[in-house]
């Protein structure tokens, strides 16, 4: 595990951007997430790790109410964004998702031009008044996603024509374009080759300056590389949550230790 560059990273802030208390998720009869308490800190990369089916993606999808699209899913408990309950009746999930963006496992650009992919979010949220402003948003978003130099000459080419890594960065640019406060990433690198993965990881670290980033990953090395805080999920429980360095070097729970050393999972 030479590439586990675990360094003692100082977490620049301790303010909680999102707080979850007693979150339970049921898919029909299946109790998928059991009593999860967690704080997502501002300007921090938080990694969720754990074996398949442990509930980490489920918890991620609770944070921007993407679970609403699953008809059998039921969420109990309290999740707050800046002190406001996102499951409150008055909350429109559409507004929430503009503030809590999401990047998915498989790159899923719209079958439209690169420009339109990035411009779609700002357009539907009415963030711009004219073409010039839109051009600017598209450019800054693509720059933040480290894609601008590769695509600036072919913004009208279809987004689906890019390589896998470029597509995923396009999806990140698309999510960034609406200026979210939290960016959720569900295994963003699992469909990418090592080079593209490295690019995206570098990107995640840069994005931390602007947002809270939550990343679900199967790769412990990746969690160790990119995150400041790590949460370990197992069988629907949040087993351990703390500073990445501490989780990987000095886990408190025996289950965490077994997982990290490769004995379960």
């Amino acid at each position, binding site marked *: 595990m030479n590439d586990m560059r675990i360094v003692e990273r100082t977490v620049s802030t301790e303010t909680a951007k999102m707080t979850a208390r007693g979150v339970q998720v049921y898919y029909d009869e299946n109790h998928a997430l059991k009593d999860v308490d967690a704080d997502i800190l501002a300007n921090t990369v938080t990694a969720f790790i754990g074996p398949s089916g442990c509930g980490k993606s489920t918890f991620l999808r609770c944070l921007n109410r993407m679970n609403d699209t699953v*008809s059998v899913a039921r969420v109990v408990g309290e999740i707050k964004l800046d002190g406001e309950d996102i499951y409150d009746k008055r909350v429109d999930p559409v507004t929430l*998702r503009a503030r809590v*963006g*999401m990047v*998915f496992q498989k790159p899923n650009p719209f*079958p439209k031009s690169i420009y339109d992919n990035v411009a*779609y*979010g700002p357009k539907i949220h009415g963030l711009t008044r004219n073409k010039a402003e839109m051009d600017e948003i598209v450019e800054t978003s693509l720059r933040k996603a480290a894609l601008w130099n590769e695509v600036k000459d072919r913004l009208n080419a279809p987004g*689906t024509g890019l390589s896998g890594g470029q597509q995923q960065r396009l999806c990140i640019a698309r999510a960034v*374009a609406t200026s979210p406060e939290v960016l959720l990433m569900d295994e963003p690198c699992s469909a990418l080759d090592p080079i593209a993965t490295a690019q995206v990881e570098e990107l995640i670290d840069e994005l931390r300056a602007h947002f809270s980033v939550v990343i679900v990953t199967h790769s412990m090395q990746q969690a160790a590389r990119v995150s400041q805080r790590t949460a370990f999920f197992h069988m629907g429980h949040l087993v351990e949550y703390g500073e990445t360095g501490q989780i990987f070097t000095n886990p408190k729970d025996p289950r965490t230790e077994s997982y990290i050393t490769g004995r379960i999972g």
Partner: protein
Amino acid sequence: MTDTATPGPARQMHGSLYEQSSLMKRRNSAETRFRTYGILAVVVALLTLAIMLFTIFRDGVSAFRQTTVAFPVEITETVVDKKGTRNRDDMAKVTTVGYGKLLAAGLLAEIQARGIDTAGMSEKDITNMLSKDGPAQLRDQVLADTSLVGQTIDVKIYTNGRIDGYIKGRVTRETAERDSNVTPAQLDLADRLRDAGILSTGFNMGFLTNPDASDTRPEAAGLGVAIIGSLYLMALVLIFTLPVGVAASIYLEEFAPKNRITDLIEVNISNLAAVPSIVFGILGLAIFINFGGLPQSSALVGALVISLMTLPTIIIATRSAIRAVPPSIRDAALGIGASKMQTVFHHVLPLAAPGILTGTILGLASALGETAPLLLVGMVAFVTNYPAGPFDGGVMDPATALPVQVYSWASRADPAFLERSSGAIIVLLVFLVIMNAAAILLRRRFERRW
């Protein structure tokens, strides 16, 4: 690691690669047999299709050719416009009998002028060779252009169905002997007229434009009303079914909660697609005509009934097209804060459009061939007047449709109608091929990959 150490069951596989075991032989011959059955099935299907097309074209192609007699006719003012006012309303009172006399005089004069032998034939024998529809054609021509009165014009008049049949080889002297409508002498005269260049056969435009004609004048019967009726039907069915079908599919696929009620709706839609079409006809008769008071035989009622039948087809096609859009696209749109509605209309629908279009066109194509329900709502009527234009209430006028015209001609006695019936099938098939080709082209054109 010696061979003897290998455990039992695998041992028989260890023969030479060049020799087939008996099990292998059985498996291979089973495969060969299956392939043969498959090829046979395909051959049978193709053969059936070929036979069907062959018989249709053998019987029907002649409907696109029509025998006519060309001769000059003097439009005598004293016959067609007794008052000499050139007033159309007055002239319209003159019946076709008057025009018939003009035609007869014209034909006899021409025969005499050419010195064609008519020995043993009465004048009536000769003039009966013209279609009974001829005077009506001439009358329409004169009423359309009153300046023709007093002039001598060249006309081309259909021969009657028997003479037409003789020229096309359907009627022979033997059948003419037994036929009260035609005599061998008339056939001989037809030959002489043809040699003189008066009688000729050419493309039958009237078959595509004329309205239906009565039992005694098959030569004048055409598909004009049926084609207009079918076009009205298709347009109306499209207008009725596409918005409703797409809206229903989107709601069921994207918005409806999955519960007992939607399950029930789903099952019923599938069942609706399997209901025999005649049942829809009865429903249409009871609801749209008897209860709703809409005019019978109209394209509107026919379209409503066919819409009921096409709707489930379109809903099923549209739903599968919507379902084929990858969920990742929906996630992507929802993930950046698009509303459900925006997700559907900006992303799902454009991607599903080729599938929806194809399904709709195929649904329309099957609606085009639908006959049974139209019989019940009266579209099988004998209609000789063109419906009005689509914006002048034409959809409320009596009309027929292509498949119904095929049916009604096929049930008439005169063999000349059989020829027209097959001809109408050819026209119907051409329409269907065009629609299916359009479906394929649209699918190719708009297909997107992701």
